[in-house]
């Protein structure tokens, strides 16, 4: 059983997590990974539409997709340009985002259904949105795994 201690230091410039342990085992690695994830999920990006800049949390994004040379973040009823490539987004997005095609990364917390299709791709529907994304066969297994782990990503 791990000891957990939270120290509140009033004049600390930046929050810090220190893990004290005699060796780095699987549990420590998981904790380390989780803390890293939490700090990354606080990363923010700017969403652009015409001459407006928008600041809203990743949670509101259903998916990111490439269209021509641009990357768009789709919310339930709108779409915004972002200035990152998909592979860059993969590194900064919280773990509840997963690549489902060469051209799309989806937020699994916003998925309402996945419909198997007679053709190669399955179709994702989102909560309270008319939008859909198709999953490439090569990404389907990873998506299923992430969906199975979905309770771990509860915010």
């Amino acid at each position, binding site marked *: 059983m791990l000891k957990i201690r939270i120290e509140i230091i009033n004049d600390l410039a930046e929050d810090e997590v220190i893990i004290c342990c005699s060796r780095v085992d699987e549990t420590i690695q998981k904790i380390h990974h989780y803390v890293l994830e939490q700090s990354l999920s606080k990363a923010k990006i700017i969403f652009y539409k015409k001459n407006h800049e928008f600041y809203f949390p990743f949670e509101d994004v259903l998916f990111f*997709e490439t*269209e*021509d040379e*641009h990357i*768009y973040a*789709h919310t339930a*009823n*709108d*779409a915004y340009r972002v200035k990152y490539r998909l592979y860059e987004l993969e590194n900064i997005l919280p773990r509840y985002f997963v690549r489902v095609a060469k051209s799309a990364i989806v937020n699994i917390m916003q998925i309402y259904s996945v419909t198997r*299709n007679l*053709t*190669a*791709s399955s*179709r994702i529907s989102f909560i309270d949105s*008319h*939008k*859909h*994304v*198709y999953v490439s066969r090569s990404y389907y297994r990873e998506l299923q795994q992430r969906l199975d782990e979905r309770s771990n990503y509860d915010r």
Partner: protein
Amino acid sequence: MIDKNNIDDDNLYAKVILSSTSKYLHLEALKGGQIISYLGVVDVYFDQVQLWLDRTEVFIDCILGTINLYIPMHWNVVNNIDLYCSNVSNDTTRTKPSENAPQLTLTGKVILGTVSILYI
């Protein structure tokens, strides 16, 4: 699979063969386009696009496939598609848009396929 050849930035071109894709349009002046589905499924979303001079024609070529068109509720849609053992589903119960509303004209052919016009 979407191929784009000899198509300028103001036109839509979506082609699918034995596959499925979603195409979200983000153009400020859509001048025209082609949607081709052979044994595949294409979803095209028009809700983030504006039509060039409010009048645009899109050519449909669908054989044994499905094309789903997501179109703003206030647009007029003129269906001039030739059908061969196929159907175009179109919600006729919605409130009729004004005559000055943007107009999307659909032409082309559907053979043993389905085109769905879905208003959003």
